[in-house]
């Protein structure tokens, strides 16, 4: 495995800096800051499974801890391992190194440079529906179907920033493959996904060096980011592959295939009074559509968020969110956001427990499909918090990409201990 190597390389870089520091006489353990979260999860799928072998629950725990060490110059090393155990689906039981990076920064005239070297996570974007522009990290899809959890990605990340904004360059290698639920898991396509048959367009396979760049800046009420990515796609094309020939009809599996793509992206938000106006748009070349044809395409998600402060003469604030997602490929889009509308309301009580309720509905304009979700967050004490979420696939069209998960509505309860 490559990570221990990277880790020891990073530590050996940091060691001389630490040894020369004023705290050299302290034990190394005293210099490490530890924090993290342990989370127990119970997820129940009330609907009967569609595919053979699927279970009706997913329960277990997740642990994520961060160790942080910094020397006198501000050079630091961050290490965040993650582990999830799931009693229902062995493929959801997994470990990952979320972060293992060395961070240095310094002055560059009136500007500043920053270097991050190692495994890190980078987020780009502004909308709530789904991450569209965000592309540096692979999606840890088994965590949650909302695609918001990411796997750690090895990279060299250089930033030059000043009053004018920030320019970032990324060199990325060691491509991570997307995680998918296994045979016993829910929220998966009907055919099984065979990770052993993963293939790449690049002859260097996962060691292709992907390049990315981003300019971002704030100009009064406008925050904008312009990005480009050239390399191996994070989104695989699922190639149906026949396995065995004696059985009729022959069974087939899905083999993830990662193309080389180029993506241009823009993410922008205008913050004015109670209104947030949001836009994410991409143009991607080199990827295959749902018909397994290479098709260049553009997609965007745009919307507004309106917040009423001290609603109903209480301390609470209510945010109303409306977003429209559109993908030029229409019915040949590879995800469920070919043409969809998200409507959501989020009520934050602003109390000492940080209580928050969110309800949302995602409706397809192309198909008669609709998903509804409700979420509740509440802090119980300094260290304990509760998170309850329900996701219902109210109606899924036969032609929709999501048809295979039509009976995978779930309710989930998480009890978290943070330290």
């Amino acid at each position, binding site marked *: 495995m490559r990570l221990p190597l990277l880790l020891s390389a990073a530590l050996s870089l940091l060691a001389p800096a630490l040894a020369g520091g004023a705290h050299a006489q302290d034990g190394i353990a005293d210099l490490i*800051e530890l*924090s993290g*979260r342990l989370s127990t999860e119970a997820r129940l799928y009330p609907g009967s499974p569609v595919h053979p072998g699927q279970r009706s629950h997913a329960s277990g725990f997740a642990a994520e801890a*961060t160790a*942080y060490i*910094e020397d006198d110059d501000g050079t*630091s090393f961050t290490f965040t391992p993650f582990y999830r155990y799931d009693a229902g689906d062995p493929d959801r039981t997994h470990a990952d190194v979320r972060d293992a990076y060395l*961070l240095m*920064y310094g*002055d560059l005239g*009136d*500007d*500043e440079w*920053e270097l991050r070297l190692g495994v890190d*996570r*980078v*987020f780009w*974007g*502004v909308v709530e529906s789904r991450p569209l522009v965000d592309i540096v990290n692979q999606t840890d899809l088994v965590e949650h179907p909302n695609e*918001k959890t990411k796997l750690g990605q090895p990279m060299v990340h250089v*930033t030059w*920033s*000043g*009053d004018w904004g*920030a320019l970032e360059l990324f060199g990325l290698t060691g491509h991570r493959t997307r995680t998918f639920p296994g045979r016993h898991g829910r929220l998966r396509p009907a055919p099984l996904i065979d990770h052993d048959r993963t293939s790449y367009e690049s002859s260097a396979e996962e060691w292709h060096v992907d390049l990315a760049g981003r300019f*971002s800046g*704030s100009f009064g009420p406008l*925050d904008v980011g312009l990005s480009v990515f050239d390399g191996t796609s994070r989104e695989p094309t699922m190639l149906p592959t026949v396995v065995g020939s004696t059985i009729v009809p022959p069974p087939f599996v899905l083999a993830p295939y990662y193309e080389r793509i180029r993506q241009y992206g823009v993410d922008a*938000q205008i*913050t*004015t*009074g*109670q*209104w*947030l106006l949001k836009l994410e748009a991409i143009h991607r070349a080199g990827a295959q559509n749902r018909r397994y044809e290479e098709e260049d395409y553009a997609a965007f998600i745009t919307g507004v968020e309106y*917040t009423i*402060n*001290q609603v109903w003469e209480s*301390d609470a*604030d209510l945010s109303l969110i409306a977003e429209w997602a559109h993908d030029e490929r229409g019915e040949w889009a590879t995800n469920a956001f070919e043409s969809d509308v998200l409507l959501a309301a989020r009520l934050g009580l*602003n*109390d*000492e*427990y*940080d209580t928050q309720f969110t309800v949302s509905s995602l409706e397809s304009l192309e198909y008669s499909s609709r998903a509804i979700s409700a979420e509740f967050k509440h*802090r119980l*004490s*300094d*260290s304990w*918090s509760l998170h309850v979420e329900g996701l219902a696939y109210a109606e899924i069209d036969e032609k929709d990409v999501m048809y295979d998960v039509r009976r995978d509505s779930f309710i989930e309860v998480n009890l*978290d201990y*943070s*330290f």
Partner: protein
Amino acid sequence: MRIALPHPALALSAVLLAALAWTFEPSAGHAQSAEEEGLRIATEARERQKGYGNFTASLNMILRNKRGQESKRELRLKVIEVDDDGDRTMFVFDRPRDVKGTAFLVHAHKNDPDDQWLYLPALKRVKRISASKQSGSFMGSEFSYEDMGAVEVEKYTHRYLRDEPCGEFECAVLERIPLSEDSGYSRQVVWLDRGELRSMQIEFFDRREAHLKTMVIEGYQQFLDRFWRAGTVTMTNHLTGKSTVLSWSDYEFGTDLDLSDFTKTALKRAR
């Protein structure tokens, strides 16, 4: 009855004389309107706070509800002065544990709404948030976002009310009315000690003119032989019976912070 009208020329000179007498009146109390006097004191108080450069400090808050139950908040902050603009502040939260590592960056402006960004460590996401939330509670405490920022003179109209004793000091009492429609207050009444012009007490009135909260500031310490900083600030909400005690510690002035430590890039590595 017959009213004797004065000669027009005589009447004019009387008005002129009165105007001159008013202009050259030696006692300052009568020389200025209450508004001018209020603005003068508020500006002077603000001027005395200027020139500190930058500082870092720790904050800890104890939130108490009506039944006396307590919860704790801990955060650290860094502040830098900006020429001809509002201060820039970076907050990093340590407690409660579920928000540990969350950071909050404010670029305050004198005449425009502030720019604010929030960093969420779980997703490594930086979110620009609206400054219209200024009347909302800061971390569930009795302090609102607008109570946490430096008071810029330009954001209020001022009126001098009176002088009166306040504890061991003699205080000037000012009324200030926020100009922003997003403010949660119709007005504030501030007690400033005459000697050093430090805020000793502030009463907050809500939009319905009810006396909502009282802030009492104690334990002032002087830094760099010039700048007074609060030790504890107690905010009591008279409508709910809740209170928050905010304690400042670990003040450090003249650190090596510069403006590049208050950018979105710096927000992502805030500790």
